């Protein structure tokens, strides 16, 4: 297999937010921080769709916002090809305007992402005019092409966003994101607010655009059944840390991180469960990101964890079957398996 063509590279990224404190803490000088993204290194390959999964509070959106340049990281670096986009405490390289032509974001709620006082045509012409790509007359033709790209008829330009249904609105949001021909598209839960019957249309569209325009896509979601359909690789985040990074097929086919498995088991199945079949749940909730425990962040909910897991943070290690996982148990199991295979071949 040839080496992957790395498009965006995130290196040891950390993003902290100060906790609003009361008077007592301020007087005593107590400082607390929310560790939203806590040392994540991750590559986005050119033309792939990387799914970022995890519960609310796992740092998915913060990571995406750092890549989009809406947040300045506290530590670490972000590279796009050979241009540094951000380093500790500063956005570097391109101006905000140039950055918008490289990375674009699609948000969860298409209704609040669109200005309801503007016709769709004006919404879509805005990027061209702001970036002085063309004049107003020329923009009209470009808007029509954009609408066609996302499968909307040209008349849509005359409508207001509230006259469209949720799926059409999300198409308009996608069209706007594509206006500047970005190279990287970040889709933050783009179907969470849509009905099941409409989710498929948007997923098909994102996949089709990725292939046709050779976009690199970061797809944020908490629904693993969607991941299975659309992603090429899966990155699992928990408490701002990367727990597992895996090819999609391997992710659904192998014994991954205990947290990934818990997420998988919690995902509702499309079938009638046996009469008294228990749902497989994991106990507890994601802990507070303010006092992150020293060891494995998942330990408090892990069915397999023991005292050793609480001492040091498990490093992200390559698995024998491919992919990376941050778990002492999985690393030990892999080691035992390779040892076993090695002894076996000797005998």
């Amino acid at each position: 297999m040839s080496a992957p063509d790395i498009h965006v590279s995130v290196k040891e990224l950390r993003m902290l937010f100060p906790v609003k404190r009361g008077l007592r803490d301020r007087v005593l000088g107590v400082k607390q921080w929310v560790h939203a993204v806590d040392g994540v290194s991750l590559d986005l390959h050119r033309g792939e769709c990387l799914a970022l999964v995890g519960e609310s509070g796992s740092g998915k959106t913060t990571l995406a916002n750092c890549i989009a340049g809406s947040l300045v990281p506290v530590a670490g670096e972000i590279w796009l090809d050979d241009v540094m986009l951000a380093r500790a405490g500063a956005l570097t390289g391109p101006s905000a305007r140039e950055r918008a032509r490289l990375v674009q974001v699609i948000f969860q709620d298409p209704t609040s992402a669109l200005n309801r006082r503007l016709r769709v045509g004006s919404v879509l012409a805005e990027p061209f005019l702001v970036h002085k790509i063309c004049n107003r007359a020329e923009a009209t033709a470009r808007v029509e092409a954009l609408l066609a790209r996302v499968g909307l008829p040209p008349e849509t330009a005359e409508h207001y966003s509230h006259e469209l249904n949720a799926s059409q609105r999300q198409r308009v949001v996608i069209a706007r994101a594509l206006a500047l021909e970005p190279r990287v598209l970040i889709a933050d839960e783009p179907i969470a607010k849509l009905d099941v019957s409409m989710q498929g249309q948007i997923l098909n569209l994102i996949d089709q655009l990725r292939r046709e325009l050779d976009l690199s896509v970061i797809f944020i979601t908490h629904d693993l059944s969607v991941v299975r359909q659309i992603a090429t690789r899966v990155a699992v985040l928990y408490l701002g840390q990367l727990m597992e990074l895996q090819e999609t097929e391997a992710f659904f086919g192998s014994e991954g991180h205990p947290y990934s498995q818990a997420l998988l088991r919690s995902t509702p199945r499309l079938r009638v469960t046996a009469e008294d079949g228990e749902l497989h749940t994991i106990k507890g909730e994601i802990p507070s990101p303010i006092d992150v425990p020293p060891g494995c962040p998942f330990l408090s909910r892990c069915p397999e964890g023991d005292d050793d897991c609480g001492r040091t943070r498990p490093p992200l290690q390559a698995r024998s079957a491919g992919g990376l996982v941050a778990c002492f148990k999985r690393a030990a199991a892999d080691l035992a398996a390779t040892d076993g295979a090695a002894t076996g071949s000797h005998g």
Partner: protein
Amino acid sequence: MSDPLLNVEGLTTVYRVGGREFAALNDVSLTCQAGERLGVVGESGSGKSVLALSLLNIIRAPGRITAGRVVFADQDILHLRRRELRRVRGGGMSLIFQDAAASLTPVYPVGVQLGEIIRTHLSVTRAEAARQSVQLLGQVGIPEPERRLRAFPSELSGGMKQRVAIAMALASEPSLLIADDPTSAVDVTIQAQILELLRHLVDERQLALIYISHDFRVVSTICERLLILYAGGIVEQGDAPSVFNAPRHPYTDALLACSPSVEEYRFPFATLPGNPPNPRDDPIVGCQFHPRCPRALDVCARETPHEESPTAGHSYRCWSPLDAPGRGSSAAASAP
């Protein structure tokens, strides 16, 4: 069979939209036995929330119930006096809303809010109410319930708030629990916990449960009987395995084909073309689904289909149903 706990006949709820009347709920009939778990599946605008509100007779203007009967525990809900109705609402019948935060007031600790419900419905002392509150919070899986009684809703996570809302719904010892998509705003892990909790509580207390959701997958994990709602009307209902494995109505089939699955790769996604009927447009004559239906016949645009029930425990309203054994041809067309 004994009388059902809830018997709804021909329930019709109408809203005034843009100068004309629109039936958000159209001639809905259903029954729910004590201890039964009934699932209602529908898209936004299908009338599923209006159904929940109509069962409790809390429809507000511009809506009103124009026809039908709702009989709950031998009481005619639509003709009760206000005082009797208040005993039923939140008493015999409780509702869990989609947005748990909205059913809690932010200005009182949860203990006060729980205690108030217990004392309203069960006439017990303050101390006894406090004791029951602790017990309830424990039952819905909240750790350290004594401490949590003093917590304000803002100090709880989304999952915890939903648990408190469930505790509040149970406080009056109802016999029917109506859950209106209570997990649409929480993570999958918390969703699984809440579904498991509801199933456990319903079993333990022999409650009837009406679980309303847009997600076929969620409903199918918890309910024994399913009811599919489209444009205010029931298009299909029956035992969960039967509806699930052999849907007869093309809409049910399309909805199933659209639902993403963790178990198989089924890209590109099946999609359902078109939109549900818009209240502002002219009413659709005949089957409400026919403009989007891949199996539509001429008759579908003329006459409303009757309820057909060829097998016990499974009925549908369709002029052109799918074949009975196994899954027929998929109703959903692929996207262009």
